[in-house]
């Protein structure tokens, strides 16, 4: 299941400085597995050792926060987009 992944600037370094890439998976968890296999260290940017998403990183399926869906178990469909968005604090 190929989906488009958007990565906020602050964690783009974890995916080879890409802001948009394709990844595979039938769920968010599998998508993260795919990204981790290709970009070791990515998982730690978005989840803890147990696989739970960090509370300061939001993951959106299309425009919906996956916390309000089925979390990392949220199913993906062909053509979906998934965005990884850590909190930003910059104002100055």
């Amino acid at each position, binding site marked *: 299941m190929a989906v488009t992944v958007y990565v*906020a600037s602050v964690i783009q370094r974890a995916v080879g400085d890409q802001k948009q890439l394709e990844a595979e998976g039938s769920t968010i968890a599998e998508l993260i597995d795919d990204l981790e296999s290709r970009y070791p260290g990515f998982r730690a940017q978005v989840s803890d050792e147990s696989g739970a998403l960090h509370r*300061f990183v939001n993951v959106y399926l299309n425009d919906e926060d996956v916390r309000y869906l089925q979390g990392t178990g949220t199913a993906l469909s062909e053509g979906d987009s998934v965005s990884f968005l*850590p909190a930003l604090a910059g*104002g100055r």
Partner: protein
Amino acid sequence: MGDAEGRAPGAPQGSAFTPEEVMRYSRHMIMGPVGPVGQRKLRNASVLVVGAGGLGSPVALYLALAGVGRIGLVDFDVVDLSNLQRQILHQTADVGRPKILSAQESLLAYNPHVTVNTHGLPLTSDNALEIIPEYDIVVNGADNFATRYLANDAAYLSGKTLVDGSILLFDGQATVYRPGEGCYRCLYPAPPPPGLVPSCAEAGVLGAITGVVGSIQATEVFKQILGIGEPLVGRLLLIDALTMEFRMMRVRRDPACPLCGDAPSIHELIDYDQFCGTPPLAVAEGAAVAAGAHA
């Protein structure tokens, strides 16, 4: 508290607009959804801007230009040369001066009809519930997580709408939190560990993106005051300056939110430095002294 009020000498304060004001605001007043009634709403409004830096500068500037009657600025910092790449209220001669003073001077130079209140100390748990209730709307231009959670909680507990914006590198975000319709804690339940998400000072920021996000925040303030349009409530606007793509994500009120959820556990302000695991903000000596003297 280091508070002070600034108004240009001889600035008119009456209820009727002077011919000069009518001309000054004419491009707004000729628009149907604004008109003289809307312009009066702007003049009667008060807005607190937290931070007089990258975001606070364009927000406060557009509020002043539009004739928002009373603008509050909270900032404890002094102008640094590295600020001038983006913080448009401050100029080269202001380096070393308290930001609230250079900001106040700039705003009054642009529009002497507005009042600019300065609060020359950091927003803290001790003063936030004194300062925020003095204003109708709060704008967040803070540069750290502790102040962002503090402003969020204090605005909610005060029943005030918070117009939020943030920036880093080439990215910007903006949203509006109206009490009862979601808050920053609903969006991000916990701050990142200290040092994980860099600041603008550490990672950099495109100067112009502060103007983009700040202008959007000012626009949302106008919509709130005028009661027009569709506010950015329940929506998070994401801006990528490099692709110039604007995307929108949903923001939901989290029923489990400790602040605005169904069974809230936060009923008063907490220690936000402890919550975020960060050291307390260090107040620049020159800023605190100058603000006190100004009051």
